[in-house]
């Protein structure tokens, strides 16, 4: 532990109570993925180095560890502080190619590679795919999306800002290759929502 004590002086701290925080964050992510369109509270409970947001960091610390792989978008990967923070708190293996990643952290949604660049899973193991966690400005303003599919009683909606123009069509293609596909989790200040691969998304 002597190495870690030396590093904590320069690396921002993680969760105050990791056990309880991880459970609460996981619960929020589980609710978001099982009820697409539902926006739930995500009290990050930590301070992350810029440009990593506290919510992105909270989800990463909740789900990633040395048994997982993580891809960072260029804005995040460019920050040595962000890389050091994630490696220190999770032990995650950071990979260069989106295709090798179990999780991807994205702060620049507009600049994100095509969904097809990430791991899609296989027909036999569709779970071996990337879950993208993207920070957005807002989860109730911006592009209005109509949602349908498992987890939704009849219809649901979600508004996201920003929303790259190509993403709706990409999500349709993603939906069409079910059971393979990408799951997306969106975080904004203190909140989380998700679009699993099962959700059909249309611009309303």
């Amino acid at each position, binding site marked *: 532990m002597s190495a870690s004590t030396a590093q904590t002086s320069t690396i921002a701290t993680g969760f105050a109570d990791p056990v309880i925080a991880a*459970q609460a964050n996981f619960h929020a992510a*589980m609710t978001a993925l099982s*009820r697409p369109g539902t926006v739930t509270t995500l009290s990050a409970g930590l301070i992350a180095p810029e440009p990593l947001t506290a919510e992105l960091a909270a989800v990463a610390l909740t789900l990633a*560890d040395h048994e997982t792989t993580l891809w960072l978008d260029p804005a995040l990967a460019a920050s040595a502080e962000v890389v050091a923070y994630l490696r220190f708190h999770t032990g995650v293996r950071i990979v260069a190619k989106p295709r090798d990643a179990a999780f991807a952290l994205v702060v620049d949604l507009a600049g994100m590679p095509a969904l097809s660049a990430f791991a899609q899973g296989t027909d*036999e193991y569709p779970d071996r795919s990337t879950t993208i966690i993207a920070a957005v400005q807002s989860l109730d303003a911006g592009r209005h999306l109509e949602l349908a599919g498992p*987890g939704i009683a009849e219809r649901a909606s979600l508004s996201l800002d920003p929303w790259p123009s190509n993403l709706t069509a990409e999500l349709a293609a993603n939906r069409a290759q079910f*059971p393979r596909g990408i*799951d997306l989790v969106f975080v904004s200040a203190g909140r989380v929502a998700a679009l699993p691969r*099962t959700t059909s998304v249309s611009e309303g």
Partner: protein
Amino acid sequence: MNAAANAQSTGYNFAYLDEQTKRMIRRAILKAIAIPGYQVPFASREMPMPYGWGTGGVQVTAAIIGPDDVLKVIDQGSDDTTNAVSIRKFFAKTAGVETTTETKRATIIQTRHRIPERELTAKQTIVFQVPIPEPLRFLEPRETETRKLHALADYGLMHVKLYEDIARHGHIATTYDYPVEVAGRYVMNPSPTPKFDNPKMDMSPALQLFGAGREKRIYAVPPFTKVRSLDFEDHPFKVQTFDTPCALCGVENVYLDEVVLDDRGGRMFVCSDSDFCEERRAEGHRGELSGEEPAFLKTAPAVEGEAT
């Protein structure tokens, strides 16, 4: 409660599992939710109770439970069967959470073999203990083969099996663990619940999670998801019916347990869901035998029951 304080008092982490294991299970649960009905492999741990006794359900519950949750555990519909008591005690001890027998108060319900009669709500998660998660296992024992069949959505074997039943018996002869199709894609085992409970899974407001510890699989049905019991146009799916109402609370159209009262053919039928039955009796509902406590509820000599 404070997790560190809990760790000190029990010597184990909150809800027993270490955080590394919980993360691994949580990742599997999220994938399971995203791919309804697909069995996600997970690195199931040895638990302090035997494989086959709910280790999958216990691992799922341990991974999702938080300090504010209220836990209910049932086995065969009852909160007081030995294994349900044992699992409830395990979480009361290792997580310090509140436990309940009341379905409506629970936020997490871990179950073996039943779904409660009371409709579950969007605030609830039901966790099923699963012995054999693979619906095709008894038709094709090889994992390598069944995985391919799921990949191709080739469920011909299952339909042939059900159709052979019809050819031989005139009807489908599967009464529990009756296969379902989830969200129009994967065929899934609902775990050995009676087929009576299958319709409750369809478009349920609650999240349904399934844990198979020995077989190392987790799967899920998200809320409001289509769950269709496999059938044929000329042989539509039908649930069990009972000729008599519950002898204690008088309710009809629920799943009943047959209780043998003597060795001369005396029997009574009572609600399998013990909380549901108690609640009805508390509300003043009475069944045929509810004037007297039935023999199995007390230690006095057996009461002569009316044969049904």
